[in-house]
Structures are given as structure tokens and as C-alpha cells.
């Protein structure tokens, strides 16, 4: 009897609860993200950058690879911004705006692939270390410690000079050295989730470990993984720019924001021709700033503890 009364009241209560909380976790996070103005601005800038990268061939006014000649038939080298070339031309007479747009394409895709690689490795190792523990954990974490000790930039420089420097090598190398933070993060989260009673409950059912890890553990740590991957993207763009700037990353004539800055190594250019180095510099700055803003916004939006 009491059970049925209970059932009736449960139903009533639950109807109100479900009308209040109908949204999924994603929708709720988006609601919180929208309230964060800085993150929204970052998101919009990022969207803009991604769109220009995707539609580069439609937007860019000139071919980024070919030099432009002026009326006298000479190469139009280092021309200041004008109506014809909004951001001027570089030392080989190529249109800077076009190269900037194509360079964004390269820089963003290098970063995305690199982050995909590092997230893949990092999440996998973190899951293994956290869930299986014992010697698996010990080995993985010691390897991680060793990789953390590598001076990344020097390692990347020497490796990419040993291999032929190319855009693909840059992707792989950045991916292979930047998974450590993700591994540590994921391991920690898995250690937390592994002890949750719902994981014990499926273990009590005799579910196999692979299913437990991918169905019960991984979905519950997606929030910190997403945030970390976002922030890592900014870092990958920065590393790619540094490498390309030093001439061991993306090679000329393929434009990337990093190798566009190469011209800025001359004092002459630095002092008198800011249109050559300012656009890629600002592009890098804006991208990284907006990615970090989005990352911070995501962190706040996905963490239910910051709910107010």
C-alpha cells in the first residue's frame, strides 16, 4: 500500500523534475557557455578563422604561390598595403592577404591533426594506466615522466631536420611529443571514476574491462578531455609557428603563419615594413587567444560544480 502511494507521489514529483531538467548535459553546458561573453567572443573569432581557412580558395584575392608583377614588369616586392593588395606584398612579391588566408589553413590543419594524434595517444595511455593500475600504470607513468623531461623544441628541431621537414612530419612530431599532459589528466580522472559505484556495479555483473572502460569510464571524463584538447590546439599552433619560423617546419613556398614571419628576421623589415610581419603575428595571437578563451569557457561550462 505504502508502496503505491509512494509510486504516485514519485510520478508527480518526477514529472516536474523532468520538465525542469529535460535538456541533456550538452544542452545545459551550451546554456552556461552562452552566458560567458569572453568565451563567446573567442568562439566567434575562431569560427571566422575556421571559415576563412575552409573557404580559402574562394576568399583569397590572389594566388598565394605566385609573385605579382607591377606595371613596369618588375616583381612587386614588399609593396605596402594598397587598394590592390590590402596587406601589401612580401619579399618575393606575393600577396600577403592571400598567403595569410592559406597560411591559416595550413596552421590550423597542422594543429588539428597534431592534437588528434596527441589526444589519441594521451587518452589511450591514460585509460590504460588508470584502469589497469599496477605495473601497467608504473611503466606508462615513468615513460610519461621521461617524455616530459625532453626539451620539446630542441627535440622537434633535431627530429624534423633528420627527417625531411614537411607539413606531415610536423603534424606527427608535434603529436608525438605533446600527449603527456593528456595522459596524466586522463589517468587521474580514470582513478576517480574507477572507484565509482556504478563501475563496481557493472564489474559485479561480470562485464569485461574493455566495455567498462569505453562505455562507463570514458564518457564520464569527456569534459576534461575536451577542454584539454582545446587548450592543446593553441599550443600546437604555437609550436608549429615556432618550427616554421625557424625553418624546420612547414617549408616555403607553402605558406604558414610561422614561416611568413621568417621575413621578420631582418631589422630593416622589422623597423620599416610592419605589414610583412604584423598580419601573421596578429593572426597567431588572435587564434591562440580565442582558443584559450573558448577552452576556459568550456571548462566552466562543462564542470557542474561551477553551476550557479
Amino acid at each position, binding site marked *: 500500500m505504502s*508502496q503505491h502511494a509512494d509510486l504516485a507521489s514519485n*510520478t508527480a514529483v518526477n514529472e516536474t523534475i523532468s520538465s525542469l*531538467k529535460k535538456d541533456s548535459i550538452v544542452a545545459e553546458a551550451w546554456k552556461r557557455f552562452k552566458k560567458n561573453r569572453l568565451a563567446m567572443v573567442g568562439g566567434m573569432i575562431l569560427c571566422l578563422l575556421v571559415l576563412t581557412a575552409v573557404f580559402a580558395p574562394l576568399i583569397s584575392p590572389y594566388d598565394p604561390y605566385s609573385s605579382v608583377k607591377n606595371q613596369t614588369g618588375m616583381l612587386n616586392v614588399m609593396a605596402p598595403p594598397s587598394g590592390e593588395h590590402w596587406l601589401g606584398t612580401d619579399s618575393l612579391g606575393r600577396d600577403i592577404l592571400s598567403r595569410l588566408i592559406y597560411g591559416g589553413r595550413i596552421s590550423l590543419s597542422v594543429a588539428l591533426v597534431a592534437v588528434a594524434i596527441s589526444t589519441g595517444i594521451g587518452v589511450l595511455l591514460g585509460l590504460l594506466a588508470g584502469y589497469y593500475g599496477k605495473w601497467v600504470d608504473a611503466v606508462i607513468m615513468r615513460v610519461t615522466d621521461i617524455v616530459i623531461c625532453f626539451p620539446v623544441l630542441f627535440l622537434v628541431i633535431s627530429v624534423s631536420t633528420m627527417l625531411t621537414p614537411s607539413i606531415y612530419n610536423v603534424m606527427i612530431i608535434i603529436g608525438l611529443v605533446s600527449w603527456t599532459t593528456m595522459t596524466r589528466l586522463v589517468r587521474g580522472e580514470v582513478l576517480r571514476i574507477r572507484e565509482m559505484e556504478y563501475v563496481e556495479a557493472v564489474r*559485479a*555483473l*561480470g562485464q569485461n574491462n574493455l566495455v567498462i572502460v569505453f562505455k562507463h569510464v570514458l564518457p564520464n571524463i569527456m569534459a576534461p578531455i575536451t577542454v584539454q584538447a582545446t587548450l592543446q590546439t593553441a599550443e600546437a599552433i604555437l609550436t608549429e609557428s615556432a618550427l616554421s619560423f625557424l625553418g624546420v617546419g612547414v617549408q616555403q613556398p607553402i605558406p604558414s603563419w610561422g614561416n611568413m614571419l621568417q621575413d621578420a628576421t631582418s631589422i630593416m623589415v622589422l623597423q620599416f615594413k610592419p605589414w610583412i610581419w604584423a598580419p601573421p603575428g596578429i593572426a597567431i595571437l588572435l587564434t591562440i587567444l580565442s582558443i584559450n578563451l573558448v577552452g576556459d569557457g568550456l571548462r566552466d561550462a562543462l564542470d557542474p560544480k561551477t553551476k550557479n
Partner: protein
Amino acid sequence: MHKENILEVKNLVKWFPVKKGLFSKTNSYLKAVDDVSFSIPRGEVLGLVGESGCGKSTTGRAILRLIEATQGEVLLEGQDLYRMGKTALKEKRKDMQIVFQDPYASLNPRLTIRSIIGEAIKLHQVVSEKERDAFMEELLYEVGLGKHFLNHFPHQFSGGQRQRIGIARALAVRPKLIVMDEAVSALDVSVQAQVLNLFQDLQQKYGLTYLFITHNLSVVKHISNRIAVMYLGQIVEISEKEEFFRNPQHPYSRALISAIPSSSPEIKRERILLKGDLTSPVDPPQGCRFYSRCPEAQAICKEVQPPHKEVGNQHLVACHLR
């Protein structure tokens, strides 16, 4: 009347190594469960009581092999779970289930109730795929929830409802033994009573056997047939419920019973107050574990561990003074 034992636990031991520093060897152990033996007849409820940290939950988990015991045997229907291969154990798991304490941590927040309960049914092929939905609806009805809840997520439920889902998940594989690990402790008192009654109804309906772990003697008094009292990793007294409350033998049991709040201010009971704190289970004393807090302690208690003595019909107590 003698019933067969569905569960027999023999000399169960779980020691956790205590490590200090990175390279040092393990030099001490946390003896969470130290030589625990008991059995539960089919269809009965054994209440396992004791204060926090005495090893109740560790015992429950070691019985289900959710953690590996250091030593000992756990016989479920005569078969030792610790001498079983992986496949045999997995098969056996559908006979024994667990319901947890924290209703907020025991359901995966990313899954609907349908997939939470469905996983259990699928894994052990309890019913065919066609009948699965009907079976799940029946299960929910069984625990007092409507079938439309199947598509809801755990955060849409209250604590009591979640606990009902927890029991539905456990029931889904038609188990014979359920370990109730503080299953009502996290609920407030009115809900506690409802859920407790539900547990009792289900137990009687399906002839289930419960190992009911709790720190609440009133709960145990309500639901159990037999009661075992644990102190610092050992069972100090085990007896039929009526006998236990009428005639507690161990000084610790007496102290526990005297601490049950009385329902009327008229009833005056002598309160036995224990001095000191629970002794650390890391390297416990060699004599009686209760020695440091026992109001009746003698010289012998410090030296020799008391054996279990039979003081009545199936009433065992570990105390030198009985």
C-alpha cells in the same frame, strides 16, 4: 528445521599493504578483514553491523570478488568463488548482486535507465531481445517505478528512486544472493522505511538471500533473521536476531544496543559509553581487538585472542569472559 547454506564464508582475510615511500618494501598491513567466517541459509537475511572502518564493506566486496581477498574461501551454493576460472565466475555473477550505499554514485550519469538495466539483461541473456522491454517495465513496476522512467537519466531521480533503480538493476539478472552495502544509509528516514519495506517484500517474493551491511542496528532489527557484529575486521558475535537483542553477550554488542535511541523518553536505559577511538586496523594488537575500549577487560584479553565460543543455540561470541 535445517536449511542449506547458500553462502558460506570461511576464514576470509583481506590485508591491504601499507606502503611508505616509493622504494620501501611493504612492512605493515591494514587488516581490513581478518579471519571472518559465517554462513547464510537460503532465503534468510544476515545483518552485518559495525562502526565505520571495521571492514563490513570490504567483506561484502570480497565475497563478490569485487576486490580480491588475501585468503579464505567463499562458497556460493557449495562452489568456491576463489577457485573459479574467469568464465565460470562471470556465469556465477548473475547469482550474486550488490546494491550500493550512495544512490548518487551508483548509476552512470551518462546512461538512461533503459541502458543501465538493459546492460545487465543483455550480458547474461536473462530474456530474449524481444521480451527485454516488457521485462524491464515489469522490473520497474516491481520496485515501484513507472515504465516511462526507462528513458530518463539518473539525474532526473531522487535518492530513493535511484535506490529503487539500483535494486532493479540487481534484480534484473534474477540473483539468489544480494549484498546490500549500506543500501539505505544515505536515504532520509521516511524514504529509508519505504525502501526497506520494498527490500523486504522482494526478499520474500523471490526467496532472496541478503547480506545486509549497515551501521544502523534499528535497520538490522527490522530486516534480518540473524545478526553478525564486526569489530576491527573480525566478527565478535553472531546470533539469531531475537536472541541477540534479548541476550547480547559481547561487551561491544551491549554497548551498541545501549546506543539505539529509544522511541519514548519514559524508557530509561543504561547507556554504556565506550572510551577512546577505534584502534587502527594497521597492525592491530595481538590480543582481543576490543581490549583498549572494553569496560570489562582483563589481563588475559591483552595477551590472547579470544576464540569463538558457542553460548547458546547458534549463538557465537568471541570473548574470554563468557
